[in-house]
């Protein structure tokens, strides 16, 4: 059975589900799409797996192994796999691309050139290769994770970054409205396994060389790519200007 949601209906479904619970959004996503998977980063987005496992026994989950994760994250991925009896799909970067980068620039080029090139090869390329096989995916993105880049995250959207001319990809962000506090309350209340790095002061967890613990009252994103300046990243056509002339 092939299930889907028409591209044109996404906005109205977003409006309908904007304030519903993560479980309601997940239930909707899993009921509408057969070819759907959760992207699991190895951090607190494990709550999505816990919620989905209570809805269906056939939840598909994938993780991106960049080759540079902390040992604790690898242990955690395996623990989650066993705990939920998951067929956890681990995606790897293209060996030739990684080899070329390391050969040309060494193992820590991101400290000089910025993280984008390395992330592109180790994370986004394998992600894209996976996403072209799916009709929809589910992420643990939350608005409170980054006021700059995630302030407007909807709970459901057409994924313009990874859709192709032939295929529309739908992205669900069931945790968009949840705060870190709510996520951690869920983890404790439901006794969900978590990455041991959280006990060492890590909040946002990525690759080992690009992640560090943060101090009290520092935003979680201050523990990622801290050596880079956040400048103007894109040329937005400000919504206020655009909407005012509608």
């Amino acid at each position, binding site marked *: 059975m092939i299930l889907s949601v028409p591209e044109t209906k996404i906005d109205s479904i977003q409006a309908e589900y904007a304030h519903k619970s993560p479980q309601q959004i997940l239930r909707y996503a899993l009921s509408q799409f057969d070819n759907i998977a959760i992207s699991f980063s190895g951090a607190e987005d494990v709550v999505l797996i816990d919620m989905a496992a209570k809805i269906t026994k056939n939840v598909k989950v994938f993780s991106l192994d960049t080759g540079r994760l902390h040992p604790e994250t690898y242990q955690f991925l395996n623990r989650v796999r066993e705990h939920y009896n998951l067929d956890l799909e681990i995606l790897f970067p293209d060996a030739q691309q990684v080899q070329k980068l390391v050969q040309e620039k060494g193992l820590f080029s991101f400290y000089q050139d910025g993280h984008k090139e390395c992330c*592109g*090869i180790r994370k986004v390329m394998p992600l894209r290769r996976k996403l072209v096989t799916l009709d929809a995916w589910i992420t643990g993105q939350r608005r409170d994770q980054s006021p700059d*880049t995630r302030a407007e995250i909807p709970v459901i959207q057409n994924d*313009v970054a990874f859709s192709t*001319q032939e295929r529309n990809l739908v992205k669900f962000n069931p945790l968009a409205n949840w705060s870190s506090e709510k996520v951690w309350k869920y983890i404790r209340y439901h006794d969900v396994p978590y990455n041991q790095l959280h006990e060492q002061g890590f909040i*946002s967890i990525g690759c080992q060389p690009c992640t560090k613990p943060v101090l009290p009252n520092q935003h979680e994103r201050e523990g990622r790519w801290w050596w880079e300046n956040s400048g103007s*990243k894109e040329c937005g*056509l400000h919504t206020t200007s655009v909407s005012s002339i509608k």
Partner: protein
Amino acid sequence: MKVTIVKKITTDGNLCRKSADVWERLQKERLLGYIDRIIFAHETKPNSEGLILAAKHQVERAPFFIVQQDDNSTQVYTSYARFLSEALDRQVAEKEEIAEIMASSADLDFI
């Protein structure tokens, strides 16, 4: 096929960084001949044609391309790489496509 490019003019009167970058690449790759019309979206002028087109096509990022086919169908591209490969049928390196996706989707950093 008719191609329109919409470039953004910022409050200081200059092209935004990405509009300038894409235009330079079009020049460098000798593709300016494919552009039939250039429209500007002035950040300070809500009624500028570029902002009206952005609203019409629900685009929130500059530059973007509007491609009108001979059968009158219209495609809008905010991705330069996708414009190259789909509208102009050019080969685009995967690395380049990925760089553009990352530049326009900052939240991907934290996937």
